[in-house]
């Protein structure tokens, strides 16, 4: 039981940055914009987060700086793709590479700097429930935020008018425009939200998971977040399933290795990708949830006047 609990705890912490970044990107894509630069925004969040936290001595300031850094990167992307109607794929890839380089510069002064990670917050009484208690109610603030985000994003997209308008922009921007909605402004806000989430995910990496700066420390998690959005067929609940599944298999394969299971680790390392894809494809088939991507995804929109 102890080991199971320990494994689940690790799975949740390993999955949280993926989940937060994926939820942000999900909203961006729902608005019809494809931002491939998640990795770049995420690592900028990681670099600026730890830089600000060390500079000010406050974790909260670090988190805020990470969110702002993610948003600044997203704003740059928005200016290019929405303001100048540049190609979203090219701009997104450029953003990812740019972020990796720039974060190295931001973080250069903080290499080897040391600070304590952000601690856990225990919910009284509830955290005493066996197994579920420690897993759900004795976590760091980021994990609670990710739980809340899944719920809020799902509710926003499906149950609010604003969410409906945002989805309309993603499905048919010409129609949304004809109805008088400011398509570009709505998309820009969605892109900013995506940046904020990616920055937050980055902060989780550099402030909680491994509380120090190391260049390239996000290690491709931004790309995984992108993939999760697609495999989750743009549904927040499934994004959570995808993120925890990916994190879960990642951690389980490490445990299997430690336990001396004789399976090639290269295969084990590939498993999270394989299983996540297979399971999400299966879910899609079973539910017949033919949720294809938003129809206007990745198509630049230039309002005619």
């Amino acid at each position, binding site marked *: 039981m102890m*080991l199971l609990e*320990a*494994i689940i705890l*690790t799975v949740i912490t*390993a999955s949280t*940055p993926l989940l937060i970044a994926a939820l942000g990107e999900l909203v961006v894509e729902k608005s019809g914009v494809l931002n491939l630069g998640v990795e770049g925004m995420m690592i900028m969040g990681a670099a600026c987060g730890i830089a600000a936290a060390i500079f000010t001595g406050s974790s909260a300031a670090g988190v805020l700086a990470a969110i702002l850094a993610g948003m600044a990167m997203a704003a740059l992307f928005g200016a290019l793709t929405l303001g100048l109607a540049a190609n979203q794929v090219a701009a997104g890839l450029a953003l990812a590479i740019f972020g990796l380089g720039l974060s*190295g510069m931001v*973080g*250069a002064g903080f*290499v*080897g700097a*040391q600070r304590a*990670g952000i601690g856990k917050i225990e919910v009284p009484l509830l955290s005493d429930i066996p197994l579920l208690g420690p897993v759900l109610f004795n976590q760091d603030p980021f994990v609670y935020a990710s739980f809340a985000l899944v719920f809020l994003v799902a509710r926003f997209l499906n149950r609010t008018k604003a969410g409906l308008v945002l989805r309309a922009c993603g499905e048919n921007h010409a129609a949304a425009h004809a109805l008088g909605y400011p398509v570009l402004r709505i998309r820009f806000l969605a892109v900013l939200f995506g940046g904020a989430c990616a920055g937050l995910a980055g902060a989780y*990496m550099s402030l909680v*998971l*491994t*509380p*120090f700066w*190391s*260049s*390239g*420390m*996000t*290690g491709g*998690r931004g790309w995984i977040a992108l993939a999760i959005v697609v495999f989750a067929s743009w549904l927040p609940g499934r994004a959570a399933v995808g993120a925890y599944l990916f994190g879960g298999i*990642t*951690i389980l394969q*490490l*445990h299997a*290795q*430690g*336990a*001396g299971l*004789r399976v*090639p*680790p*290269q295969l084990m*390392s590939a498993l999270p990708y394989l299983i996540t894809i297979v399971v999400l494809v299966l879910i899609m088939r079973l539910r017949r949830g033919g949720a294809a991507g938003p129809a206007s995804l990745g198509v630049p929109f230039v309002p005619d006047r």
Partner: protein
Amino acid sequence: MTLTRRLLLGSAGALAGAALPGSQADAQSRLSVGVVLIGPVGDFGWSHMHDQGRRRMAEVLGDRVAATTVESVAPPDFDRVVTQLVRTGHRLIFTTSFSYFAPTQRIAPQHPGVFFENATGPTMLPNMAIYNARFYEGRYIQGVIAARKSRTKTIGYVATFPVPEVIHAINTVMRGAWSVDPAMKVRVVWVNAWSNPAREADAARALIDQGCDVLCSHTDGPAPLQLANERGIFGFGQASDMTRFAPRAHLTSSVNNWGDYYAERAQAVIAGTWQPKDTWGGLGSGMFRMAPWTNMTPEEVSEAERIRDAIASGRLHPFEGPIVRQDGTAVIPAGQRLDDNQIRAQNYFYQGIDASIPG
């Protein structure tokens, strides 16, 4: 001077042009040395210590050398970077990764007037030397300390790739541990990366959750050690002194020291006595040292120092027989020891290690 790759390539034309007029007189009095790094100077591990070596060389030789560091050079960019260094007058070039071994071997014959030094390749050329440090000596000491510290009798090892360097390190840790307590066990997790802090930390979590209470790691950064600190167990630092990352968990670090070797080789080029040679230095020659002992009792420290001195002086050899493979076949009997080539080629675990080597 530290250059990024892009800066180097971008400004190469300007540099070459600017350097030419005055370079004739300058080149005779001052040796230009290039250092090519696989990672960023700021990795606080492997590449960082090679850059420290470059600094040390500059300290020792003063204005007789001018060094250029090019960091984060991916193997596909290697040829361009090195060609550029050669064109800008660098006559001694250190290529500081095993990943550069094959490229260095390919490019060295094209520049017969330039001396190449590769860490940590296996073979030489007339203008290419190889150098490495006997890190396994430090691993043996880690094993001894781990066995003293461990209550659960289980060491966790965050391994990178299944190459001989890593495999013989794991074997040596266990040799050291068994010399204290033959019941010691090891759990191994391969992370398939030299640097991926979050995955290293997850691997460390898995090992700790499975009951390991001393962590050894082969990755470049301090993530596993930091996690050991957080979880109240012990660990070791790699490449540089990592005490400050884990004040409560750090036991000792293997601290690389390339500087004296770099200075010696640069001096040899200046004096015209450079010869290709295979240098595999250890504790004895100061190629690395064990950083401060921390969180250890005075008895543990004196035992560790005794073993360190025995290895440094050659009285104790970590690869003494009998050596038996995991599957039970004998490699060498008691009284013999593995030679350097056998150590370099070690691709099997010892009997008693309950872990597997991938593929």
